[in-house]
């Protein structure tokens, strides 16, 4: 099967769905690019080139460049979604949600419930997150935890190209508001991706590797970091079960609990900040629902509680590394309930 990058997988998803359904449109800043310029139209194609070339096939009526006004762009997409279109609103960086949060939080997310189930809002906001590009505090945050906290929003966090395509097609066909988070550092990661359209249901975790000693739950780019750690730990006979939840809302609690019931140990790896984050959310859920199975405390490996720094030395230290994950796993392997109460 052909290997494709996340970038290509995402583009295939958008193109296939735009061909399939004339109501699917792309709205965003520079999704085509070049409007009102002296050079070529359509060469920009979004911050990561995902929508590059689409304007040639679908025209500027369906690949819509907007001014750099995120409230109007996301709000417009919400309004269009409530009135018959299936917009994919491209928000270059999730950090920009700061200027348009209301359009998701108070508008799009609320329609279905607030209007008594009589409205559907098939809106996808596709955005980019994550550190690693030396882009510093305003272009590197994760923020998926903020949206996971909002009822009425589904949060999709693909870690590989196969999932990216299937989850994006699912998102476009979904009748609820979906925020689709791509980590900027893994756009070129390749995987076997079918040429056809396919969907992956939300709330179905991927068991990346099976193991018996420790469960690791990791999100987005951290799935790869955790997998590196697991490979290294395997050499020392420590068997890791790695779970990629794929979506943080809905969350596949069942798969996580089942795994912890088998291993009795849990490490959560989350590039977000530590307070009120996904790691804490999963830890709380497991502590409540699988306490009986835990042989040791849950360890959370997260970024520190600081803005994302600029200097490479600082940023590298900020992002959870495979070494840190390994350390956490080795630590959790040495801990037990007795040791905790004794210490």
């Amino acid at each position, binding site marked *: 099967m052909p290997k494709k990058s996340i970038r290509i997988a995402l583009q295939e998803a958008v193109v296939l769905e735009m061909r399939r359904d004339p*109501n699917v*449109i792309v*709205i965003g800043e520079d999704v085509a690019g070049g409007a009102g310029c002296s050079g070529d139209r359509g060469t920009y194609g979004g911050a990561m080139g995902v929508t590059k070339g689409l304007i040639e096939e679908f025209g500027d*009526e*369906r690949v*819509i460049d*907007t*001014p750099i*006004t995120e*409230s*109007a*762009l*996301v*709000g*417009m*997409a*919400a*309004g*269009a*979604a*409530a*009135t*018959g*279109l299936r*917009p994919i609103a491209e928000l270059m960086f999730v950090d920009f949600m700061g*200027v348009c949060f*209301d*359009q998701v939080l*108070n*508008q799009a997310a*609320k*329609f*279905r*419930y*607030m*209007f*008594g*189930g*009589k*409205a559907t809002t098939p809106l996808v906001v596709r955005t980019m997150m994550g550190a690693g590009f030396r882009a510093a505090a305003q272009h590197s945050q994760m923020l998926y935890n903020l949206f996971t906290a909002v*009822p*009425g929003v*589904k949060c999709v966090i693909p870690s590989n190209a196969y999932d990216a395509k299937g989850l994006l097609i699912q998102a476009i066909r979904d009748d*609820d508001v979906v925020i689709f988070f791509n980590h900027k550092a893994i756009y070129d990661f390749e995987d076997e991706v079918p040429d056809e359209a396919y969907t992956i249901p939300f*709330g179905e975790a991927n068991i990346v590797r099976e193991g018996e000693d420790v469960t690791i739950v990791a999100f987005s780019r951290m799935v790869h970091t955790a997998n590196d750690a697991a490979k290294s730990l395997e050499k020392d006979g420590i068997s890791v079960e790695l779970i990629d939840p794929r979506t943080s*809302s*809905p969350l596949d609690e069942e798969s996580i609990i089942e795994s912890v019931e088998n291993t009795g140990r849990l490490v959560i790896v989350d590039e977000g900040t530590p307070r009120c984050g996904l790691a804490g959310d999963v830890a709380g859920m497991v502590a409540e629902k699988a306490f009986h199975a835990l042989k040791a405390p849950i360890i959370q490996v997260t970024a520190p509680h600081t803005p994302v720094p600029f200097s490479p030395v600082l940023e590298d230290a900020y992002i959870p590394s495979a070494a840190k994950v390994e350390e956490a796993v080795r630590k959790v392997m040495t801990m037990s309930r007795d040791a905790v109460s004794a210490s």
Partner: protein
Amino acid sequence: MALDKEALLAVYRTMQTIRVFEDRVHVENTTGDIPGFVHLYAGEEAIATGVCCNLTDADAIGSTHRGHGHCIAKGCDVKAMMKELFGKKEGLCGGKGGSMHIADMERGMLGANAIVGGSPPLAIGAALSHKTRGTDGVAVSFSGDGASNQGTCFESLNMAVVLKLPCIFVFENNGFGEGTGADYHVGSGDIGGRAAAFGMPMTKVDGVDFFAVQEAAAEAIGRARRGEGPSAIEADVVRFYGHYEGDPQGYRKKGEGDEMRATRDCLKNFRDKTLGDGTLTATELDAIDAEIAQLIDEAVVEARAAEFPSVNDLLTDVYISY
């Protein structure tokens, strides 16, 4: 385009329905049986009616926290609205929205909106939807003078011009953003001028003159339907009641609301004009008044008698609950 007699009677029925609905809610609210916040539209009927009488169910409107009038003018069921205000299961939103979030997608009513400046982005979205789908439908954004200062509003005005959207921005300047005067909070004092500065045609009208509103709206909507892009209307109007029900209105000179009711009443203006030029008769209008009085009476009686939602409804209409 002059309205025929039948259309005029329909317009009067709409305005009178809004007025009686709001006056009655003002009274019912004092009983404590209407939960939450209520913002009344009384005094501003000519705007919602003058705009919406040019629209069909296929056209969309975005509204404000003061949205009852827009709902009624857009054809929402009055009894279901009253039930929604009382928080009942048979309310327009199943008792989950309330006064500030009444919506009826089938009527193109995208919802009252409790975020000031909430409606312009949604309205341009509905306009984009019409444009993309190739219909001749339009969208109207209703905003107050307060919302006219929000960034969402400016962004939407610009977007509508950039994308040449079939959208009409109607600014209802009732002189107050909550408890602060428009003379203070609108820096330039010229809301319509701001819209014009974004590059769209703009008209200022007297918001208590139904005929002026209707004429300006018909022109703007016609332009949008023909694919000629967005327009703006600024309508100066009066707010009979406070910002919200229970508002002590200390920021307002005593009796101002009543004074406005006596001097700037759009319904009285409409009656005087249509009776004066002989197009309508007092008998016809009185008959409508009686009909509306009974309708609102029934609406209140039925709303009070209606069932509340079941507690099980708490977890419906959302994709997942934890």
